[in-house]
């Protein structure tokens, strides 16, 4: 179904972090941007579609001052808003927002870090663009910071702080089908496996809370009102967002799941885990019977690699890219 293409070499290897691959497709310029985290650095590659031009850029995590130890980056993700595309980088010290090509930093938000380290680590993690003008970022305390983003310029403001989770946020996702009919706009996941479903607005509204089963949910997606969640046990669960009804349960992987992605136009689902496997599934939603069908389509094994990032490169799922711990390349696959 898919075959391997030429890999893109990166300056450093990928770190073992959840959802460690950002992909942004820029059709007008026939380019795709990739972002991969290595310790305190984000490696960006801009790849032309003809495969001839590659340019690299490195972004450093912001240090408040020279004397303190380096701040590790936890995630780098592209946020697509109607008016602009941005790159959001979360780290131990705070949140940096850049123009999507990484050229200019437009905003910096510092996390409140205690003077001496506490038992519980402090960091930001979990990034999602929501609806028209919001970017939401999770924090290790369980808080979710909601930023209001103007259509241009750097006047980004912190609009709200959502305090619903009590455990560290792992991932967040917004409704990606493009449908205006969906009630739920955002889903957030935490280390306890708890999922919160939100409606965006001047004040975000909690629509539903789906309780976890004491196992971290490391990656989450929201598509046509269905939450797709990947867990440390290697299981994937599909829930109806607003009601919390369990549609399906998949014993998908033999190790901790690190990344999920959905191709919204085709309903293809991509899952990747520490077990070296990337799997492609198909989701079929039947609104009449309010049921979801899950079919397994394809496996790819990246030998001797714990995969940390996997994303479709386009909305149809025609191609996808993969990163792995200690691997200095972005592996690409295309449909045959």
């Amino acid at each position, binding site marked *: 179904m898919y075959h391997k293409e030429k890999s893109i070499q990166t300056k450093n290897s990928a770190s073992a972090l959840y959802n460690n691959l950002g992909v942004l497709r820029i059709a007008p310029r026939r380019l795709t941007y990739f972002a991969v985290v290595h310790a305190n650095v984000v490696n960006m590659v801009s790849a032309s579609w003809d495969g001839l031009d590659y340019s690299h850029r490195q972004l450093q995590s912001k240090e408040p001052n020279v*004397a303190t130890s380096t701040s590790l980056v936890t995630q780098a993700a592209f946020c697509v808003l109607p008016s602009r595309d941005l790159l959001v980088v979360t780290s131990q010290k705070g949140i940096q927002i850049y123009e999507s090509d990484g050229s200019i930093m437009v905003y910096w938000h510092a996390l409140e870090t205690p003077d001496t380290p506490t038992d519980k*680590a402090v960091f930001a993690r979990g990034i999602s663009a929501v609806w028209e003008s919001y970017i939401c970022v999770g924090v290790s305390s369980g808080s979710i910071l909601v930023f209001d983003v103007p259509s241009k310029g750097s006047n980004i403001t912190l609009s709200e702080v959502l305090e619903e989770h009590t455990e560290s946020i*792992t991932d967040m996702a917004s409704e990606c089908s493009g449908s205006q009919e969906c009630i739920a706009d955002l889903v957030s996941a935490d280390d306890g496996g708890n999922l919160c479903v939100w409606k965006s607005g001047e004040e975000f509204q909690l629509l539903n809370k789906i309780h976890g089963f004491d196992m971290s949910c490391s990656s989450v997606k929201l598509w046509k009102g269905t939450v797709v969640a990947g867990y440390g046990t290697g299981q994937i669960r599909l829930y109806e967002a607003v009601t919390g009804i369990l549609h399906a349960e998949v014993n998908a992987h033999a190790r901790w799941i690190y990344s999920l992605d959905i191709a919204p136009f085709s309903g293809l689902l991509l899952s990747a885990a520490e077990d070296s496997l990337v799997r492609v599934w198909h989701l079929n939603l039947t609104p009449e019977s309010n049921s979801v069908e899950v079919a397994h389509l394809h496996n790819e094994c990246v030998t001797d690699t714990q995969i940390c990032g996997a994303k479709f490169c386009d909305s149809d799922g025609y191609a996808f890219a993969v990163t792995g711990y200690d691997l200095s390349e972005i592996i690409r696959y295309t449909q045959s």
Partner: protein
Amino acid sequence: MSSRTLPLLFINLGGEMLYILDQRLRAQNIPADKAKKVGWIEEDRRRVMNDIITTMFNKKFLEELFKPQELYSKKALRTVFDRLAHASIMRLNQASMDKLYDLMTMAFKYQVLLCPRPKDILLVSFNHMDAIKDFVKDTPSILSQVDETYQQLIEMYSSLCSGEFQLIRQTLLIFFQDMHIRVSIFLKDKVQNSNGRFVLPTSGPVPHGTQVPGLIRMFSCAGEETNRLQFTNGGNYTAAVREGSFEIFGDRVTKLGTNMYSVSRPVETHMSGTSKNSVNAAPNPLAKEELNLLAKLMGGLEVQKPGNTDSGFRVNLFSTDEEEEEALISRPDELAYGVINIQATKDQQANAELTKIMGEFTESGDQSPSSSKGDDLLAMMDGL
């Protein structure tokens, strides 16, 4: 990232160090005086092990170690282990110390990677602890220190959730990033490839709490199962085995963290020299913060006066002295550890180096407070 990583890193690396030293001390033909009996050599070995373990489990030292803090840089941690390795009458040359550290780190990297669940790192730690306990079983004073450490580990880690263990694991993996030194014993056992990467099998038992991949279950709105589908998982998995014990005593089940060396299996390393530029390469001098932490930690490490070299004996991690010399000369630059040489004797040069490092971090607005802090730190270093 996780502020609870250092104790696990230290105990596991320490455990590996003891396995290796124990094997080398047994294997090494110590050129004994004709006057000395074989029994004296055996006693020496036990003394070395006891001295190192006593230092490792020093109460003040462990107190500092268990405080919530960020992981040290590779350079700083190497300095701590250098000190630890010399806590007895045993002496190691630079090349042997480098090799020892390579082996220790690659072994623990292997164990962290292969752990089925992040929580299993605790079982690996207990395996090391169990072995350490066995080394000192005849010495009650050290034994009680070790027992207390079990308690501290249980207290600190038992209540952590799966996600927090994964954070610890991720922090460790960042520490070990890009290390691909090839270790003979791993290559022979086919757990490491010739490119230095570890073999990750897609077969065997799944972790405790995980199901064998292959089943899709679909449900109706009422919660009834409506359909079941099977898919090929691309591997050869079996059901999970029983869970290991997280108590002070018990069967840990996993073999990761147990002693893989024996007298007949000598250990060699090959330098692959493929480590790319990673975090610790760029910001070189130890951050002021880190230097402070290091000083506090080292304060707890009592060091033997190195003066009387007759009473000490040298341990070589290579087969011959020539090999050891050769290894030192030919070690690739990118794999140099750049250890900070903090000596126990009052050394002009070391003080100058430290002063220089401290000087580089004096903040401009901060006049007398910072300079007196610097003096205090140097004074503490002098006392080591």
